[in-house]
């Protein structure tokens, strides 16, 4: 025997349909809440992804490999913590054996002064392999001039801010001064071939990129500071890192590794900030929705007081009355959430397709069109929250209904 009171579900549903205007208002408030959370969640997710991929594909790569001790002491005596040629070769062999890897490229860092005869500007320099770096740094855009090629032994790419500060033109020759590995000072000529934008203004104000061999000549060394690994998919970073450290151990290589996540402090700060903002916004949106639901449910209870008295007289328990209203609330929550999800997905896709240009984000030197991801975890969590909030907000009105005194409830007929 089916021993549920299915009339409860029927009456609750019919009551939802009964006062359509009020139900619509409640549905709307749940829907607005769900839509705004889906849109904001999707926007934040796209922003995180944009930032992450921009950092990975302009500077960090997914993984960086260094000489042991580099991260602790390298900033004081960088010349002592370079990877030697033999290590570079060994690591290249190991890394190229992994299917997840897109490419591996060396970099030699240096700091120096660049001068045009009148003025000198401090630079953060990278000796790079231009061919490979062009693939890794797909997020770097060329503003003026052309790319660096291995054949341009003296060629240099300068950050946009640096280019402006030097007041230079494409094709100009400048002098680059730097200290060598053994502490002397050396100078080489560089020719500006292009000005670039990495997306981060601070970096663009100091950045100088030259051929690796040119940088090695400048510093009298054969070594490199780091090997940067680019993967096919950001999600595989940790897997590859684990594989590599196992391989390095097997081969007796004492190296250090850092993932993009460990290197991207700024990214984590932004993520934490926005997660906080999102959390706060969520609470406000849910609170407003809850107030609206509680209000309409309270009105429903008052309006149906005589009916509540009648069903209690017929033998419905307080629990049954409470369940009747909570069932009604969960219908509203379900319908509202479902409509909200549909509308949210539609709006997220529409906004992304419309390609509205966002104002340039702080600390960034490029602007992007707004993209809103349909984040499935956000979608189902929000939908569930919508139902939950509808039910929770109705507990008090439902409780009130269940506690009405029968004789008084009937008298108000």
């Amino acid at each position, binding site marked *: *025997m*089916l*021993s*549920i*009171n*299915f*009339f*409860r579900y*029927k*009456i609750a549903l*019919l*009551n939802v349909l*009964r006062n359509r205007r009020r139900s619509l208002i409640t549905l709307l408030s749940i829907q607005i809440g769900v839509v705004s959370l889906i849109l904001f969640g999707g926007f934040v997710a796209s922003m995180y992804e944009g930032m992450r991929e921009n950092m990975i594909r302009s500077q960090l790569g997914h993984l960086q490999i260094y000489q042991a001790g580099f991260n602790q002491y390298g900033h004081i005596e960088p010349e002592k913590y370079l990877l030697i040629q033999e290590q570079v070769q060994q690591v290249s062999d190991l890394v190229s054996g992994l299917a997840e890897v897109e490419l591996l490229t060396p970099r030699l860092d240096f700091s120096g002064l660049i001068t045009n005869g009148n003025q000198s500007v401090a630079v953060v320099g990278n000796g790079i392999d231009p061919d490979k770096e062009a693939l890794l740094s797909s997020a770097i855009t060329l503003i003026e001039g052309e790319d660096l090629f291995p054949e341009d032994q003296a060629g240099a790419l300068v950050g946009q801010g640096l280019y402006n500060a030097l007041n230079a033109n494409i094709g100009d020759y400048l002098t680059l001064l730097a200290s060598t590995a053994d502490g002397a000072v050396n100078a080489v000529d560089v020719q500006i071939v292009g000005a670039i934008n990495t997306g981060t203004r601070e970096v663009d104000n100091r950045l100088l990129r030259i051929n690796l061999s040119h940088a090695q000549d400048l510093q009298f060394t054969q070594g490199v500071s780091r090997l940067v690994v680019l993967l096919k998919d950001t999600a595989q970073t940790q897997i590859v890192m684990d594989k590599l450290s196992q391989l390095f151990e097997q081969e007796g290589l004492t190296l250090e590794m850092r993932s993009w996540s460990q290197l991207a402090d700024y990214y984590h700060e932004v993520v934490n900030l926005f997660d906080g903002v999102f959390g706060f916004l969520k609470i406000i949106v849910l609170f407003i929705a809850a107030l609206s639901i509680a209000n309409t449910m309270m009105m429903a209870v008052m309006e149906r007081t*005589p*009916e509540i*008295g*009648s*069903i*209690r*007289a*017929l*033998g*419905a*328990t*307080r*629990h*049954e009355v409470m369940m009747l209203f909570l069932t009604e609330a969960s219908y509203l929550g379900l319908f509202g959430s479902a409509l909200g999800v549909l509308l949210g997905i539609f709006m997220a896709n529409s906004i992304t397709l419309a390609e509205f240009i966002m104002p340039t984000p702080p600390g960034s030197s490029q602007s992007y069109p707004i993209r809103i991801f349909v984040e499935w975890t956000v979608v189902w969590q929000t939908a569930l929250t919508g139902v939950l909030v509808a039910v929770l907000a109705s507990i008090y009105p439902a409780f009130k209904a269940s506690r009405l*005194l*029968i*004789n008084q409830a*009937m008298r108000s*007929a």
Partner: protein
Amino acid sequence: MRLVNLAKVSRFFTLGQSRVCALNQIDLAVDKGEFLVLKGASGSGKSTLLNLIGAMDEADEGEIAIAGKALGPMSDRQKSHVRRDHIGFIFQSFNLLPVLTALENVQYPLSLRTGGKAAGASSHKENKAKALVALERVGLADFVNHKPNQLSGGQMQRVAIARALVTEPDIILADEPTANLDSENAQSIMALMKQLNRQGITFIFATHHDYVLEQASRVIELRDGCILQDKQRVAA
């Protein structure tokens, strides 16, 4: 068989500063098969008495027992079950659920038994069959799928009667069931209830109309919360 027993029952209400004694030290025993009419002016305490007998309200003093069970110590849930399993109600303003059809309204109290896994509860299918029989008994077999707002006052009250008798209660409490009906409908409702009484259902019936009295097997007159008169009548 003793169905209702009240011993020294009082009920007070506080309205602002003043305290109203709605029922004052009432002793009352009702046996199976009676057709008891409570009469008295408006405000004399008829509804209050019916509410107490119907386990919808609590006495301030005294003891009430329904079908041998004392209501005083019962929890709200237990009293709900007493209403569901032993008592049927008919109200002045019908009190049908507007969203349900006539048939569903009659089925509803049975579904409370089914949902509450009460002893003797029947399946939804059986409930529907019982509800149909009850509607036939009140002459509304052709109106099963009508919503209350598609029915006349007399028809609504017939549905309410069907709803009260479908659970085969020990006793049906009717609080001025004819007050909102024209005299023709009132007469036929009365005749229906009398007919049901002959079939064995006990009625306690509140009214301030005198024409009801002919049907009564016993008439109790209330005034200011006290029993003024308690007269057995020869069955009509």
